[in-house]
C-alpha cells in the first residue's frame, strides 16, 4: 500500500510540475508525461501484486476531522480496476504530447495536465476507498477534476454546454450516492464499508437502486447517459480517451462494489442490472449508428459497451441468485474482461478520432473520407480498434463478449425468469454485436476509406510521433489479448476472487477453452496468411491495372456522390423508430423554378428528447410561474409573514 501512495504522490507531482514550468512548453509537457508515467508504472506494482498473489488485501486508514477515518483497502476488485487507470492514463498523457500543440495556450495546457493528474489520483482513490467519507471525497474530486478537463476549450459554446450537462449529472449522481450511503449508515451507524451486508434486505434493494442510479449516471446507463455524447466530444481527445476508457468504468466499479458489499443473492438486482444493460446496449449502439460526429459516435459506443458490461454483471448476479456458479463466474469475469478491453480499444479509437480531428479539422463523418491513405498509421490502428470494439475475433473485444455469452448460456438451463433473461441477454448481445459491426464499418468505411469528401479531409496529414506510437501500442494490445487471452482472462478471474459468491468456481476447464480460442485465432491467422500468400501467387506476374471506380455507367462521378453516414444508417435507424426518433427538416419545393432547398435529418436521443419534453420543460414552466412569489410588493411580503404565523398557530 505504501508503494501505491507513493505512486499517487509522484503522479500529483507530475500534475503540479506543469503549473510551475508552464513557460517552457515542451519541457513542461515532457516532464509531466514522464513523471506521471513513472507514477503510474509504480502504481501498477501493488495492483498487480494484489492480483497475482491471491488474498493479499492491503489496508490503510488514517483519522480525518476527528469523526472520520480515511481508509483504503486494495482487494482484487480494486486492483483490477486500477489496471486501466494506470495503463491508459499515462498512454493518454504520452499521446497528448503531440496533441496539445498550441504553444500560446501553454498555461491552459498546464492546467489541463494538473487536473488530469488529479483525475488519475482520484480515480485510483475511488477504486481503493474503503469507507463512506473516503469514497465520497474521492468521487467528488474525480467529478470536479474531470469537469475542468471537459471545459478545456471553454470559448466554444458547445463545450460549455457539455460541461454544464456533465456537471449536473455528476452532482446529481453524487447526491444519489450520498443518499444510498446515508441509508446504509442509518442502519449500521458505521462508516466502514465492511458492515454493509448487515442491513435488512428491504433496505438493500433501495440502497442498490439508489447506488445503481448514482453510479449509472457516471457510467452512462440509459437514460442517464445524456451527458456522455456531449462531454466526450467536447473534451480534448486524450481526455476523452481517459474519460471514456477509464473514468466511466469507475461507475461500473461502484456498481460492482456496492453489489459485493451488500452481498445479497437476490434475483432482483440481477434483473435490474441486466434489463438496464440490455436497453443501454441496444439504444447506445443504435444512437451511435445514427450519429455522424466521430467522437459523438464513439461516446454512444461507450454507452453501448457499458451496456455490454452491465449485461455481464447482470448475468453474473442472476447466476449468484440461482446458484449457477459457472454463470455467475463467467458473467462477472466477462464484465471485468470487457472493462479492461474497452478501456484499451476505446481509448485507441478516441485517440484516432483525435488525430483525425487534429489534422482534418472536422469531426463529421460526412465530411471525411480517404484518410487511410493520408494517415496510414492512424487508419490502420483505427481499423484494429474498430474490429476489436465490434467484438470480432481475433481481437480483444471478442474475449470479453465470449465470456459473457458463455455465462449467459449457462443460464439457459434454468427455469422461467432466469431462462428468459439469459435468452434475452444472448439475443441482445447478438443484436448489439451486429449493430456494432454496422456502426464501425460505417465509421471506418466512410471516414477512412473511399475518397475525401471535402478539401479539409483531402489535406489531412499523419499525426505526430507520440500519437502514432501510442495508437500502435494500443492496437498491438488489442491483437495480443485477442490471440493470447489466457493471462488476461486469468487476471479477470483473479479480479473477481473477492466478489464472494462467484469466487469459488474453479475455471480449469474453461482455461482449456481459452486455449482453444487462442488456437482458433492462431489458426485463423495462419489460414489468412496462407490464403494471402496464395493470392500473391495467383497474382504473380499478372498485369494489375488501376482505374477509376466503376460508376455503373455513370460517366462523371464526383466524391459527393459517395454514400454518406446518414444514408448508410438510415434504414437501420428506421427499424428502431419510435425508440430512436429522427428529426427531419425539409424546406420543400415551392416555386415553379425551385430555388435552393434544404433537407436535413438528425437522429435524436430518445432519453434526452423525452426527458426534455416531458420533464424539464413542464417543470421549468412551473418554476417560472412560481417566480411570482417575489413580486416586489412589500404589503404582500408582510402578508406572507402573517400567513406563516396564522398557519403555524393553527397547527400548534
Amino acid at each position, binding site marked *: 500500500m505504501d508503494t501505491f501512495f507513493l505512486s499517487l504522490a509522484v503522479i500529483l507531482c507530475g500534475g503540479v510540475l506543469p503549473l510551475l514550468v508552464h513557460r517552457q512548453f515542451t519541457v513542461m509537457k515532457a516532464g509531466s508525461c514522464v513523471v506521471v508515467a513513472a507514477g503510474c508504472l509504480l502504481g501498477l506494482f501493488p495492483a498487480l501484486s494484489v492480483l497475482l498473489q491471491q488474498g493479499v488485501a492491503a489496508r490503510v486508514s488514517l483519522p480525518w476531522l476527528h469523526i472520520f477515518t480515511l481508509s483504503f483497502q486494495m482487494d482484487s476488485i480494486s486492483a483490477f480496476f486500477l489496471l486501466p487507470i494506470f495503463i491508459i492514463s499515462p498512454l493518454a498523457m504520452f499521446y497528448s504530447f503531440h496533441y496539445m500543440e498550441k504553444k500560446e495556450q501553454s498555461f491552459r495546457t498546464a492546467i489541463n495536465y494538473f487536473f488530469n493528474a488529479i483525475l488519475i489520483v482520484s480515480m485510483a482513490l475511488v477504486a481503493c476507498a474503503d469507507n463512506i467519507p473516503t469514497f465520497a471525497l474521492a468521487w467528488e474530486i474525480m467529478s470536479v477534476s474531470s469537469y475542468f478537463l471537459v471545459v478545456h476549450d471553454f470559448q466554444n459554446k458547445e463545450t460549455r454546454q457539455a460541461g454544464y450537462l456533465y456537471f449536473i449529472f455528476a452532482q446529481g449522481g453524487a447526491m444519489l450516492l450520498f443518499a444510498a450511503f446515508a441509508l446504509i449508515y442509518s442502519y449500521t451507524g458505521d462508516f466502514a464499508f465492511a458492515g454493509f451486508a448487515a442491513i435488512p434486505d428491504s433496505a438493500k434493494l433501495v440502497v442498490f437502486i439508489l447506488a445503481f442510479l448514482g453510479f449509472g449516471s457516471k457510467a452512462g446507463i440509459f437514460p442517464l447517459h445524456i451527458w456522455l455524447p456531449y462531454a466526450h466530444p467536447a473534451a480534448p481527445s486524450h481526455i476523452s480517451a481517459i474519460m471514456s476508457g477509464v473514468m466511466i468504468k469507475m461507475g461500473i466499479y461502484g456498481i460492482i462494489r456496492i453489489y459485493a458489499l451488500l452481498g445479497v443473492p437476490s434475483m432482483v438486482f440481477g434483473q435490474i442490472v441486466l434489463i438496464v444493460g440490455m436497453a443501454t446496449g441496444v439504444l447506445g449502439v443504435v444512437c451511435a449508428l445514427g450519429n455522424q460526429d466521430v467522437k459523438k459516435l464513439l461516446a454512444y459506443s461507450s454507452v453501448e459497451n457499458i451496456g455490454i458490461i452491465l449485461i455481464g454483471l447482470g448475468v453474473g448476479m442472476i447466476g449468484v441468485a440461482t446458484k449457477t456458479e459457472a454463470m455467475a463466474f463467467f458473467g462477472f469475469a466477462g464484465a471485468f474482461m470487457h472493462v479492461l478491453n474497452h478501456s484499451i480499444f476505446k481509448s485507441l479509437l478516441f485517440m484516432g478520432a483525435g488525430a483525425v480531428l487534429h489534422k482534418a479539422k472536422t469531426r463529421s463523418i460526412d465530411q471525411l473520407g*480517404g484518410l*487511410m*491513405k493520408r494517415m496510414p498509421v492512424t487508419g490502420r490502428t483505427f*481499423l484494429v480498434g474498430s*474490429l476489436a470494439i*465490434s467484438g*470480432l*475475433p481475433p481481437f480483444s473485444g*471478442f474475449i470479453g*463478449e*465470449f465470456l459473457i*455469452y*458463455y455465462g449467459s*448460456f449457462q443460464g*439457459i438451463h434454468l427455469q*422461467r425468469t432466469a*431462462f*428468459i433473461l439469459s*435468452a434475452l441477454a*444472448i*439475443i441482445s448481445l*447478438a*443484436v448489439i*454485436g*451486429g449493430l456494432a*459491426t454496422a456502426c464501425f*464499418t460505417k465509421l*471506418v*468505411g*466512410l471516414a477512412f*476509406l*473511399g*475518397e475525401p469528401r471535402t478539401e479539409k479531409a483531402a489535406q489531412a496529414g499523419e499525426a505526430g510521433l507520440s500519437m502514432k506510437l501510442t495508437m500502435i501500442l494500443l492496437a498491438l494490445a488489442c491483437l495480443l489479448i485477442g490471440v493470447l487471452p489466457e493471462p488476461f482472462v486469468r487476471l479477470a478471474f483473479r479480479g473477481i476472487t473477492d466478489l464472494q459468491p462467484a469466487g469459488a468456481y474453479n475455471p480449469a476447464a474453461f482455461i*482449456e*477453452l481459452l486455449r*482453444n*480460442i487462442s488456437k*482458433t485465432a492462431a*489458426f*485463423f491467422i495462419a*489460414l489468412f496468411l496462407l*490464403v494471402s500468400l496464395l*493470392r500473391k501467387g*495467383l*497474382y504473380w506476374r*499478372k498485369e*494489375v*491495372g488501376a*482505374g477509376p*471506380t*466503376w460508376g*455503373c455507367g455513370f460517366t462523371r*462521378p464526383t466524391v459527393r*456522390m*459517395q454514400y454518406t453516414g446518414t*444514408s*448508410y444508417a*438510415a*434504414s437501420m435507424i428506421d*427499424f428502431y423508430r419510435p425508440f430512436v426518433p429522427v428529426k427531419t427538416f425539409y424546406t420543400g419545393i415551392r416555386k415553379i423554378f425551385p430555388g435552393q432547398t434544404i433537407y436535413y435529418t438528425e437522429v435524436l436521443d430518445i432519453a434526452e428528447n423525452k426527458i426534455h419534453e416531458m420533464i424539464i420543460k413542464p417543470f421549468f414552466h412551473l418554476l417560472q410561474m412560481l417566480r411570482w412569489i417575489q413580486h416586489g410588493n412589500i404589503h404582500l411580503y408582510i402578508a406572507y409573514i402573517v400567513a406563516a404565523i396564522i398557519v403555524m398557530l393553527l397547527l400548534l
Partner: protein
Amino acid sequence: MESIVSFCFAILVAPLLSAIILKVKAFIAGRKGPPLLIKYYTLAKLFKKGSVYSTSSSFVFKLGPVVSFCSVVMVLLFFPLAGIKPLLSFHGDVIILLYLMGLGRFFTIIAALDTASPFEGMGAAREAYFSTLAEATLFVILLLFYRLNGSFSFAAFFTGPAAINLWSPTASLLLLVIVALFIVLLTENSRVPVDDPATHLELTMIHEVMILDHSGPDLALIELGASLKLFFYSAFITCLLYPFQLDNGYLNGLIFYALMGLIYVLVGITESIMARYKMDLVPKFILTSFALVFFAAILTMEFVQ
C-alpha cells in the same frame, strides 16, 4: 483422415451444388440453363486473369476477399459433414465461428465502401442491416440447441447420441427452426426473395453490388467463398433433417449430399416462384425467422423441465 477428406470434398463440391440452383431455375423457366460445372469454369477463368483496382481503394479492398474467404473456410472446418467429426471442434466454438463470419462480413463491407462508389455503399448498408437481424436468429437457434442438448459446438450438436434432428422428441420445435434457418440461408446468401443475384440493376442488389469492383482472383475468392457459405447453411439444415449415424460412412455421405441437393433444389424453386421483396419488406421477412425460433425457444420452457 476421414475428416480431412470430407472437408476437401465439401470444398470441391460446393460450386457444383451452387450450380444446381441455376439449373433448377432454368428448368422451371423452361430453359436449358448453364452446364452443371459452370461455377468451376468461372472460377478457373477468374483465377487466370489479372485485376484492375480502383484508384480510390486502399489495402482494405484487397483484404476483403481474403478475410471473407478465410472466415467461411474456418466455419466449415468446424462443421460435421455427413456425421463425420470435423477437423476442429471444442466446446463453445459456435460463438467464435459466428463471430468469424461477422469478421468476414466486416471486411466485405469495408472493402465495398473502399471503392467510393455510391452503389457499393448502398449494398454495404443493406448487408450490414440484414445481417444484424439474421445474426439474432442464429443466436436464438444456438440457445435453443443449447437448451435441448446442452452442448455448445457444431460437432456436439449433430454427432453423438444426443444429436439434434427431426427424429428426436423435440421435432416439432425443430420444424420451426428449419423454416427459420431456411430464411436465414436465403438472407445470408443473397437469394430471392431477399436479394436477386441475377438482376441487372445495381440499385436493387445487395451482395452482388458490393463486389462490383472486384476482379480476377479476388473475385474468384469471393465466388468460392459464397459457394462455401451457401454450402454451410445448407449443411446446417441437412444435419437437422437427418441423423447421420449409420455405420456405413459412404451411405451417410450419400444421404447427406442427396439432402443437400434437395435443399439447393428447394432454393432454386423458391427463387423461381417468388419475386424479390421490396427492400423495406425484407426486415419483416427476416424477423419472421426470428419470431419462429424465439417462439420455439419459449416453447422449450414446456418441453424441457
